[in-house]
């Protein structure tokens, strides 16, 4: 009986630990924020390099409005579909909303305000994205996202130490490779059938009947 009780407690602790960690990032936000701003970067590059094309400011307003709108719709839908809501899920959501608001403020301040040089914007954005990607990897138990964060830090260092027009294209490529692509991988993983686990068949003491 003592062994059964210990097995009961071990089962409870294991199930609780597994459940607390249960959070899935379906990657849609990565794809949204990896593709739309990349288009803004390319539009800005074309305008600055050739003097043709739409005003980058209008392009960026469209990018921000579209990205935020898409993110809110996706967030609402994913919130309804989430099989389980945990503290990790709340932390992940709060972190991305916070990072998104901060990036938007920095972006608008860089475009319209006097304090942030426009040339430093991409580097600053990359610096802020790196820790967010790292934490998202920890919360969703996707350790490979740590390498994606290293990519963002490396790119940020390059952009901040070696200024130039190329930064716009580099940032566009990084957005696709280090946000949209990981987002597609996350989406692929999330769409796999959930494995059967945690079956408490070994607990002999607890009655199985209703």
């Amino acid at each position, binding site marked *: 009986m003592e062994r059964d009780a210990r097995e009961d407690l071990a089962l409870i602790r294991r199930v*609780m630990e597994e459940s607390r960690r*249960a959070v899935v990032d379906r990657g849609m936000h990565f794809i949204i924020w990896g593709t739309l701003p990349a288009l803004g970067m390319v539009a800005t590059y074309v305008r600055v390099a050739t003097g043709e094309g739409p005003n980058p400011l209008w392009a960026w307003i469209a990018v921000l409005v579209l990205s935020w709108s898409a993110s809110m719709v996706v967030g609402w839908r994913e919130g309804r579909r989430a*099989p389980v*809501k945990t503290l990790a899920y709340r932390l992940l959501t709060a972190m991305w909303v916070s990072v998104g608001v901060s990036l938007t403020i920095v972006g608008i301040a860089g475009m319209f305000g006097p304090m942030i040089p426009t040339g430093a914007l991409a580097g600053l954005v990359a610096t802020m994205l790196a820790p967010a990607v790292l934490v998202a990897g920890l919360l969703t138990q996707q350790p490979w996202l740590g390498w994606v964060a290293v990519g963002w830090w490396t790119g940020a260092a390059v952009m901040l130490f070696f200024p130039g027009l190329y930064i716009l294209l580099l940032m566009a490529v990084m957005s696709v490779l280090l946000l949209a692509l990981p987002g597609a991988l996350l989406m692929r993983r999330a769409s796999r059938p959930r494995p059967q*686990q*945690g079956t408490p068949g070994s607990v002999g003491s607890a*009655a199985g009947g*209703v």
Partner: protein
Amino acid sequence: MKGSAFDYQRLDDVIHSRIRLTAMAILSSVEEADFAFLKEKTGATDGNLGAHLRKLEDAGYAEASKTFVDRRPVTRYRLTPLGQEAFRHYIDRLERMLAGIPRGED
């Protein structure tokens, strides 16, 4: 066995079933979970799990809310304050039994 350190009759009978125990352990560590998640974690069949969850609801330990996602019904469960207290009490009692501390008032 009654009165001994490992007398299971002194444990809450509503929780003391392997499926209900697992469901309670899950629900005590999350805000809410849907039926499919509980089914995956407990390894129970739909009918069996439904019956166990109804028992938790009848005891006032869990509450269910039904919604539709993509036109499909989804039932979400969460522990009530009474359920949280009962689960804490169950764990406490189990640990005391393991430690060999008899509870006279039980």
